[in-house]
């Protein structure tokens, strides 16, 4: 059962409150997503740490219910 866009956004927001999440359905199949996440919590973290914070929000769903998520992380200006 793939995750819907609103599920993905809610999952990221639960882990990173106040973040800005922009989602794009890459293939139009509700299964391959790109997320741009802008969050204060990323400040001072390396890219690997930032991406891990996003992946951590999904726990074991990553790679299972959530088949493909392209992640871009940004720190707000």
């Amino acid at each position: 059962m793939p995750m819907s866009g609103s599920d993905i956004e809610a999952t990221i927001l639960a882990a990173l409150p106040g973040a800005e999440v922009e989602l794009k359905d890459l293939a139009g199949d509700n299964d391959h997503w790109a997320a741009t996440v802008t969050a204060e919590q990323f400040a001072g973290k390396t890219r690997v740490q930032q991406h891990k914070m996003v992946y951590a929000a999904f726990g074991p769903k990553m790679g299972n219910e959530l088949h493909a998520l392209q992640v871009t992380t940004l720190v707000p200006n």
Partner: protein
Amino acid sequence: MADSNTRISKTVKENDVVLFMKGTPLFPQCGFSSRAIAILDHCGVAYESVDVLQDMEIRQGIKAYSDWPTIPQLYVKGEFVGGSDIMMEMFEAGELQQMMNEQGVAKAES
């Protein structure tokens, strides 16, 4: 598990640049792996690839090895660099090429 850890650790230490991927550089089996290969080819570096689809133990073990849930995964000089998104961000910023230069990794034979 311990055994796959040992094998992964050996692979990333014996090769300057290693990509754990789905499929092979010629026949990638996933869009993300395909993108990672394209980036490495653009960087013009020699790399070793490991097809995780041929080895279930490595496929699971690599996720635990760097606490990173997805494939592909790039390692340079034994250090985990990131997945294909990070590779793309670094490549676009010129940081990936710079890192390969600084680490003194071998160029691809043309």
